[in-house]
């Protein structure tokens, strides 16, 4: 049996005391770290290292080959002078506002309906509403692109049947709305599940007590349901902002970011700059700015709504 010598502190006389520990005791101290190290190694290799490397690249003028020139913060400065980037930020903000103020209320409404006593076959509706989220975003966007077609699309055929003029769904004026429509179809279901989980966590006794006190449905919803849903609401709001700011597939397939960048998102522009234009340094800088925006918005939401959610 091999033995290691380990310092175990000081003796009463002030001199370091040594105790010979058996090997298995040493392994007991090291093994837990070995067991948790895979996560840290993977995190370091696939998350931390690329983050640090991207920060490095963001200070470079680099086409992806071996020619790298240090330019400091020039990429970041150029971003705020780039009209395409500004438009991408504006478009992304539009999608985020739409996601928060259109998709979430619809999701909450659906959750309220599915949660109500009047609806039977709740599981069927839950599965049905979540199905769009399970489809491929590219396949869904292709399908919607066909439906949005000006001459042959389903939506315009419906408008014509109602005696209304056909709309140019993928032109500059309506393309963002069309992207939001696709996003709503796809993401309402999963958000409904989050709200539903929140609704089902509210104790029924609270409503009973309110009913006894004479509160009607609207009063119960406004004064009981909404306040008690605040923690779920905060979670949903944060992930909605994070998800929307990274929107890529739907605007890319529907309209290629156009026409004239009218539907371009920041994530799309990062891909375009990095992989189509080979401006890797610029794309890295954009990535960091996007991350900073998401972080700032998420922090603001947690600060503004988080304390109220905790009831503090």
């Amino acid at each position, binding site marked *: 049996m091999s033995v290691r010598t380990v310092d175990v502190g000081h003796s009463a006389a002030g001199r370091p005391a040594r105790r010979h520990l058996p090997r298995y005791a040493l392994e007991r101290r090291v093994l837990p770290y070995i067991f948790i190290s895979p996560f840290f190694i993977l995190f370091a290799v696939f998350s931390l290292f690329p983050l640090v490397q991207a920060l490095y690249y963001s200070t470079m003028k680099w086409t992806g*080959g*071996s020619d790298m020139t240090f330019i400091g913060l020039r990429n970041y400065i150029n971003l705020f002078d780039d009209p395409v980037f500004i438009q991408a930020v504006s478009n992304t903000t539009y999608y985020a506002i739409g996601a928060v103020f259109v998709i979430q209320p619809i999701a909450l409404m659906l959750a309220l309906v599915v949660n109500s006593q009047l609806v039977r076959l709740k599981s069927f509706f839950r599965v049905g509403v979540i199905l769009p989220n399970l489809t491929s975003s590219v396949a869904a966007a292709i399908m919607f692109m066909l439906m949005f077609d000006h001459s042959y699309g389903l939506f315009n055929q419906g408008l014509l049947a109602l005696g209304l003029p056909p709309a140019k769904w993928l032109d500059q004026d309506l393309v963002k709305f069309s992207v939001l429509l696709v996003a709503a179809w796809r993401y309402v279901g999963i958000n409904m599940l989050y709200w539903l989980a929140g609704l089902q966590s509210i104790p029924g006794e609270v409503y009973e007590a309110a009913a006894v006190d004479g509160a009607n449905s609207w009063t119960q919803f406004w004064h009981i349901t909404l306040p008690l849903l605040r923690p779920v609401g905060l979670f949903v709001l944060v992930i909605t902002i994070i998800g929307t700011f990274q929107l890529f597939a739907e605007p890319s397939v529907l309209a290629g970011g156009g026409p004239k960048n009218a539907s371009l998102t920041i994530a799309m522009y990062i891909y375009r700059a990095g992989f189509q*234009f080979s401006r890797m340094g610029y794309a890295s800088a954009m990535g960091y700015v996007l991350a900073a925006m998401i972080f700032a918005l998420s922090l603001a939401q947690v600060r503004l709504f988080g304390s109220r959610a905790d009831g503090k």
Partner: protein
Amino acid sequence: MDRKKLSRRDFLRMGALTTAGAALVACAPPPAAQPQPAPAKATEAPKPAEAKPTAAPAAPQPVSLTIWTFGSFFTDFYKKIFPKYKELAPSVDLKVEEIQGAQMWDNLTAAFSAGKGAPDIADIEQGAMSRFFKGNISLLDLGDSMKTHTGDYVMARCDPYSYKGKIYGVDHCLCPVVMFYRWDLFEKAGITMPIATWQDFKTATVKLKDQGVAAISFADRGWADYHMLLTQGGTGGFFDEKGEPIFDSPVHVDTLKWYVDMIKNGLAIPTPAGAAAYAALGEGKIASQIGADWYGGFLKNNIKDQGKGKWKAVPMPAWKTGGSRTSANGGTGYTITKQSKAPQEAWKFIEWALFDKDNKYLEYQINGLLPPIKSMLSDPRYLTPDEWFSGQKLGELYLEMAKEQPRHNRSPYFTEATTLINDAVFGAVSEGKPAEVVLNNAMKELRKQMA
């Protein structure tokens, strides 16, 4: 730090130091791709081997070649010819990897950035080529290798893969642009085809408009149709030979004005997106379309029986009498990467795949792509009548067009230019902005990006 105990803090400290060390090592720029030894200069592809008198040659070293391609129509072709090549070159092992669509360009970009992982041979689609012209080009110059083929190969097909006089790719196919048209609609309107010039086309096709049919369609937010028309006119496309953008020149402005005019006058309509375009063509709402030979295949496969026997093809109207009646659109080039450990063998395979007539006919049968080699085009196998195209021998038309295919220029900023031209075309067609304004704005923006 107590060296005998491993505290949580110590463990995390060691982990952070290790990660930081790895980050510092990896943050160093990747080493420049080392071109492999070749008989000629390091940046050039190997010259064709010369016959030498001799003693028995040493047994060839085994060589493994990897080909990256992006479509099953190429993969199927390679898999069919690999066994034949193995008989000719037993020491060469060939492997093809199919990476779908844009993922392949991303993978190539990553491999070139990393300095390793790139294949020997890469099929690069012409539209994706320009990104690989930026910085240190990671592809071999095939100019010397092509010298023995310039008489027979349609050299205009190297243009999408050429930059500053060097040829980095050699196209699989000819991609001649013609005008596919509904002969029954043109006949009903009393219009005789082919039409000599675009001005004559504009005049003659008023009769189609009177019958409620659009003579042709052009993209209202895409660059390709505009580029085909520009190239046909001998402008060189969007760039000059030095790679400088020229799309604010008078001929570019006039071409866009003509394009917009056709749509404004109702002679042309904006091309519907995706499947809707084929629906409109199939229903006879659009009477003609310019496109490459492969586009004829798309028409056939998408319109199907609804269009059988109603379509034919003729040369494009020229911009001036006696001018070119064709252009080029699309294409995929064979390239050899600088990371290849056997560039000579890679070129030998490409040369055999491209210049062997049976191989090219096999490729034509699989993917419908005509060989860009003049002597092959008169092969009777390409001259059979096509029932769908009303029994026309399209090969005869393509053979004629191969002689007229105009040259054009590319630049590392071709992708940026096409993105800006998309916006310019949209601005001119859909927003009614003057052609010179949209093209000037596009030029200014491109120069900013090139700076």
